[in-house]
């Protein structure tokens, strides 16, 4: 039974993603999939006044409970509680969500000059660890439901690096 969706922009500014998450059409889709809560961590990006009128408001149209805040020192707790995470494509957020084995949709910010986020999103999408899209294709990606059948991301293997260094240093 799906429950909470977390939308996160991390410490970046990603107005378009926040706007998309606040839009009635996206909230309708989420509600129709049975999600009851939507948390939007919007950082420096503004949230539309209808969404923020009260911090803990039930969206009158979709019946989704919407909760917004700017930033927390650790998003871990909110990530743990989420059933679906829609995140910006920063590698830190991606890793954190993948390690928690969450259904993850990553939205690449096309307005950024440096497009290496796209490369990371694409390669992880190819390997079916997450779904990578842009703001304009977010709704389509949700409807395709590919995020329901993702591969679990392997747990961190710290022995790879320590074995490498041990061999190098002669231990």
């Amino acid at each position, binding site marked *: 039974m799906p429950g909470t969706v977390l939308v996160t922009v991390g410490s970046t500014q990603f107005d378009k993603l926040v706007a998309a998450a606040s839009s009635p059409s996206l909230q309708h889709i989420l509600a129709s999939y049975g999600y009851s809560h939507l948390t939007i961590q919007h950082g420096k990006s503004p949230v539309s006044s209808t969404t923020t009128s009260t911090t803990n408001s039930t969206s009158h149209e979709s019946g989704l409970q919407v909760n917004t805040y700017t930033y927390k020192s650790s998003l871990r707790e909110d990530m743990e509680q989420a059933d679906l995470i829609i995140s910006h494509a920063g590698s830190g957020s991606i890793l954190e969500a993948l390690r928690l084995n969450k259904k993850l949709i990553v939205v690449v910010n096309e307005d950024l000059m440096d497009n290496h986020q796209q490369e990371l999103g694409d390669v992880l999408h190819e390997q079916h660890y997450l779904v990578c899209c842009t703001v304009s294709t977010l709704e389509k990606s949700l409807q395709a439901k590919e995020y329901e059948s993702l591969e679990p991301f392997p747990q961190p293997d710290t022995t790879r*690096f320590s074995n490498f260094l041990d061999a190098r240093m002669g231990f």
Partner: protein
Amino acid sequence: MDLHLAANLALATAITLALIGIPLILILASRLWSSLPQNRPRHKHSSATITRPLTCTTTIFLGSGGHTAEMLQLVSGLDCTHYTPRHYVVGWDDDSSVEKVHRLEILLGAKSATNTEGQGAGSRSGTGTGPEAGAGAGVSADRLISDIKSSGSELAYTVHRIPRSRHVHQSMLTTPFTLAKSLLVAMPLIKRLTCLTKSEAHPNTEVGRPLSTDAAGRSRRSVLLMNGPGTCLALALAVIGARMAGVPDDQTPDLVFVESFARVKTLSLAGRLLYPLCDAFLVQWPGLVQRYPRSKYIGILV
């Protein structure tokens, strides 16, 4: 006539400068060339006559944010009884990384304390002897304990701050000045933290003479771990500078760079700058190895 004299003087000065300057530049360039790892014979740890090291002085650069998170993840997997002492170098105002270091070191200390449980060796600074004593066949326990005691007077880890080489959005024009500033701080720091003395690198032996006993042959190593961003260039340059000045390889730290998990097809700026300087260069996506043949892929590391 004065004009003539001045012209002659200028010409003489130019010729003198060229005579001194051009060879100087050539010498420096060839010195730099031969100091780059790909142009050096790797005799450091490949020789079979060198026995296992006792400990490895480990200097870790933390570049804040995602860089710090990835690096601490790497460090968390190391055996801290081998990799000791650990020196963390952070950006001047990077309090958040310092806090994360303390948190990780508490975990490492706990890990090493459980490793040494029942061994009876004093490990108040986190330098346990459990695995070391277990692994060192034929090593006299007395010597081992005295070694640990002598390093036990210092802390198992230290934290140092250096000025950033380049601030976010800083102009490329002023970057050489900020880089020079961090280099000035980095050079004495590298010398103090990472460089080994000849007797540490080759205890009780002279160069060329085979090592006598196992215990005597145990040497100290040094490694510098980096994963960006640009400020770590100052640390790497300081090490290269030491090699250019003639400090032998085994007394300078092994330069190890780990490119970020975020880099799939292209290297980061720090990666591109450090690629020719580092002794080992790890990437986390196989596609990069084709473009950068000196790099190595051993899987995702974080």
